[in-house]
């Protein structure tokens, strides 16, 4: 099972859209795409839309935590958008909901940047 990753520049930041399963098999792809975004830099925020994620395991969580740490290093905001029910479940179990900034839509996530 693959994950589809698309990244575009939106306003003051980048918007990455993930679709599919983010697990031990696909997390390295997500990490690699995030690395490209950090290499480009020059943005106020990184938005990751998780509405199309059917499944996320602890390697997916680890990838997001690393992204948060990299954003902090680059003075960028990491904002997660529209968590799917499976992602909400794993966030709840790992008690991560208060760690990340989560928004219902990309427009709301972009507001105030």
């Amino acid at each position: 099972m693959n994950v589809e990753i698309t990244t575009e520049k939106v306003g003051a930041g980048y918007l990455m859209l993930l679709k599919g399963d983010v697990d031990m098999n696909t997390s390295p792809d997500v990490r690699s795409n995030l690395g490209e975004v950090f290499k480009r830099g020059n943005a106020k925020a990184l938005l990751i839309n998780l509405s199309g994620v059917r499944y996320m395991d602890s390697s997916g969580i680890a990838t997001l935590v690393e992204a948060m740490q990299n954003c902090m290093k680059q003075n960028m905001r990491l904002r997660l958008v529209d968590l799917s029910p499976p992602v909400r479940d794993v966030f709840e179990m790992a008690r991560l909901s208060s760690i990340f900034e989560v928004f219902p839509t990309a427009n709301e996530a972009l507001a105030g940047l």
Partner: protein
Amino acid sequence: MTATSDEECAMSGGVINTPQSVSLTVPSQPKYLFVIRSALYPLILDAGFSKKEARKVILAVDEACSNIIKHAYAGDPGKTITVTVADTAERFTVRLRDFGRKADPAQIAPRKLEDVRPGGLGTHFMGMVFDTVHYDTSLEQGTLLTLEKRKQQVKA
């Protein structure tokens, strides 16, 4: 995937009320983890758990399989993981059999959730979802991990 039904047990002289069990063996490769997840989902729902609970059970089993690939087999893709699911009126049980380096239960500890960092969550999820997490390392080779969930926790 192989299924052992009550009928087959009776025909082979087994005990008639032997619980139904389903087994699946996959290569020890991350790309096959979704096969285990896909096979488990209908079985968990059939056992009476809600969709939300099913997602949590799948997450815990998937983490256990990932640990086998990473730790027991150290990434060797040429091994196997056998998953056996048994469902009775009292409990839902998942057994994971590997033939790699034996698990050391003393070394397996979940990290504190307050310590936000990558990794270390899989064991936490297993303990959170299942009532019993038991590593049997007495076998000649590998480990048999038994994950058990009591049925009285099934929500209507």
